[in-house]
């Protein structure tokens, strides 16, 4: 496994915390009517993307689902511009034309942000195809929600990736619910990571509340893919604390279930580890907390003051 430095612990804690504070603020802005449409929060799932990102090369590519804010923050993208996209302003990553679900940053090899369940899976497979076609040693990380694992195109993509030995790492973020339908009411066979077996794609299940477990699995899987062995599947067991989207009161699950998961809060796990290993003091952590809160407050400020896109922008970017 990748040897973690002291700075890595601080980095993980900071990014996970930043995602949480960002999402809380997004929820507040949504409630104030500053953010419209659909808005899917990542709270509870922070360890997944942060863990995976500890193992990658900056020239690797990524595609994900519409639950994408946390993915962008973890990638090091500017929270101000992410929030400005959520508020539909011209400084947003998609200039206000994409919104929460459709954000991209080509220069950071971040290929969205896809609003259609499952559609990002063949797309990520195609990006991996390009890495191979160009003779690059990079891989494409393709995130999949548990809901998409019952979608036909996902299996078509698995078949193609295995057939052509494409450098794609599939990461199933199993947060237990596809909108309001629990996995056991949607999937025949609960081991989603085994769904590549028929194609000869290896897979494993990982505790997604614990960032250290995620790193270990991602490191091993990433090496396998990068060495030209073809695709690999990691199923990360995680949990979203909030509803599917802002309009979901999450009546389909119990408070006890939620409280139970909160006992293993991913951010608290890292914090405890930092204190135990004496990587930072309580005061230093408190400072990170304060700075993060401040940064996100500024992002919200920026995003609500950025201008709306000009009317003339309606007709741009339809064709290149």
């Amino acid at each position, binding site marked *: 496994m990748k040897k973690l430095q002291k700075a890595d612990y601080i980095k993980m804690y900071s990014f996970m915390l930043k995602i949480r504070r960002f999402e809380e603020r997004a929820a507040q802005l949504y409630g104030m009517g500053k953010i419209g449409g659909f808005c899917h929060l990542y709270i509870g799932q922070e360890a997944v993307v942060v863990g995976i990102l500890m193992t990658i090369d900056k020239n690797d*590519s990524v*595609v994900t689902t519409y639950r994408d804010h946390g993915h962008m923050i973890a990638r090091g993208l500017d929270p101000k511009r992410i929030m400005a996209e959520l508020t539909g302003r011209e400084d*947003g*990553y*998609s*200039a*206000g*034309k*994409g919104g929460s679900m*459709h*954000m*991209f*940053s*080509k220069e950071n090899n971040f*290929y*969205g*942000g*896809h*609003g*259609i369940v499952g*559609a990002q*899976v*063949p*797309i*990520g*497979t*195609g*990006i*991996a*195809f*390009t*890495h191979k*076609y160009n003779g690059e040693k990079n891989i494409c990380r393709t995130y999949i929600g548990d809901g998409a694992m019952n979608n*036909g*195109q996902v*299996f*078509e*993509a698995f*078949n*193609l990736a295995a*057939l*052509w030995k494409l450098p794609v790492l599939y990461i199933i973020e199993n947060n237990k619910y596809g909108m309001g339908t629990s996995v056991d009411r949607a999937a025949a066979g609960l081991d989603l990571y085994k769904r590549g077996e028929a194609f000869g794609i290896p897979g494993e299940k990982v505790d997604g509340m614990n960032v250290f477990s995620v790193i270990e699995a991602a490191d091993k899987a990433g090496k396998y893919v990068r060495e030209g062995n073809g695709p690999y599947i990691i199923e990360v067991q995680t949990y979203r604390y909030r509803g599917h989207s802002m309009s979901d009161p999450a009546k389909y699950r119990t408070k006890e279930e939620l409280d139970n998961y909160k006992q293993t809060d991913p951010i608290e796990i890292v914090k405890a580890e930092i204190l135990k290993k004496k990587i930072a003091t309580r005061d230093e952590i408190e400072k990170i907390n304060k700075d993060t809160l401040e940064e996100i407050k500024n992002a919200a400020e920026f995003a609500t003051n950025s201008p709306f896109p000009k009317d003339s922008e309606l007709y*741009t*970017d*339809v*064709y*290149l």
Partner: protein
Amino acid sequence: MSTEILMPALSPTMTEGNLSKWLIKKGDTVKAGDLIAEIETDKATMEVEAVDEGIVLDLLFEEGEANIPVNKAIAIIGDPNEKVEAKKEAPIEKLIKENKIEKNIETKIENKKADIIDTPSPKIEEDRNLSSEEITMRQALRDTMAEEMRKDNKVFILGEEVAEYQGAYKVTQGLLQEFGKERVLDTPISEHGFTGLAVGAAFKGLRPILEFMTFNFSMQAIDQIINSAAKTLYMSGGQINCPIVFRGPNGAAAQVAAQHSQDFSSWYSQVPGLKVIAPSTPYNAKGLLRSAISDPNPVIFLENEILYGLKGPVNNDINFSIPIGKANIEKEGKDLTIVTYSIMLQKSKEAALRLKEEYNLDTEIIDLQTLRPLDTETILNSVKKTNRLITVEESWPFGSVGSEISNIVQRDAFDYLDSPVIKVNSADVPMPYALSLEKLYLPQVDDIINAAKKVSYIK
């Protein structure tokens, strides 16, 4: 009793074949199921089996003879003691002469030839680089892909049967041999998956040419075409474009019925972010496909199976292109305008000849070439000159390309119109299988003539 072995139709659109090899000789005894010959069609070389039994009495063609029409007798088998007249005339032609044939067989031949008139238009003849040799539409498409693949390593082709099979309609023939399996990829029958894969590759900077065996199968993949390929440039605020060509045969072939005969021109033309092209000749197929492959946007390139065998001169300059968004005035005229595209250009040209001969009407024909963006200027200028318009297309009538043209013309040239615009489309029903009904379904030359008479107030 002797039996004639006829040149078989080995595909729905085959009209003739080449006898590449005899596997039997005179005097052989053949049983049903024995292989008797190798026939080369426009798509492949295939072995033909005997269905009747007897002794081979005569072989009517030499090995290597080409362009033998479907249903022509190629051999005679039977009882060796029976006296046989070697008939070189196909029984179908004989029967037509003797008036014994059923009308729908006659229709079948007519349908397959698709009323093709391949006289080059005046503009093409002005092209100083025009080849003296005529090539088929399928060769024109293949040559253009090969030329672009030689120029740019990022161009690759994928689809069902494009590589080892050499193309379901032979459009990709030879590409695997020249460019190898890294750039010419056979896919599984998995349109949704491989379309999404190609879109992802285009996002990442490659320039895929994706062949749909027919556009009917693009419905399996339409989410990726519209939600991913067409919209991502906009959704990403201009960051991520999708330089991809989706190509393949569109519309009716011959008797392949409802699920394999759909015309998608108006479906795709409705979508901002897509460009839609429908070539009608080898000449414009070359020029337009080159523009499509070079374009940084997703392009829907609607070919037509019946036109694949259409021959014509081309411009062989490897940089020759026809701009997207520009219609071609195929024939100038002053009395009425026909706006059409793809295979209906051929029927429109035939209608124009008859309108001149029978009604002294001088028809202007506009071949749209590109459906989106639409060349409204050329259409409006023509209507302002002729004052009468009919649109002719194979798609269903509701919300068709002709519907949009009618709207534009009534809005922008209302005062120039001397009669209402009339649309000629296919019937508003699923495509039937029966030959007689298929003919009724598709727009025919008579339908165009009737529409032209109507806008000209001729009884």
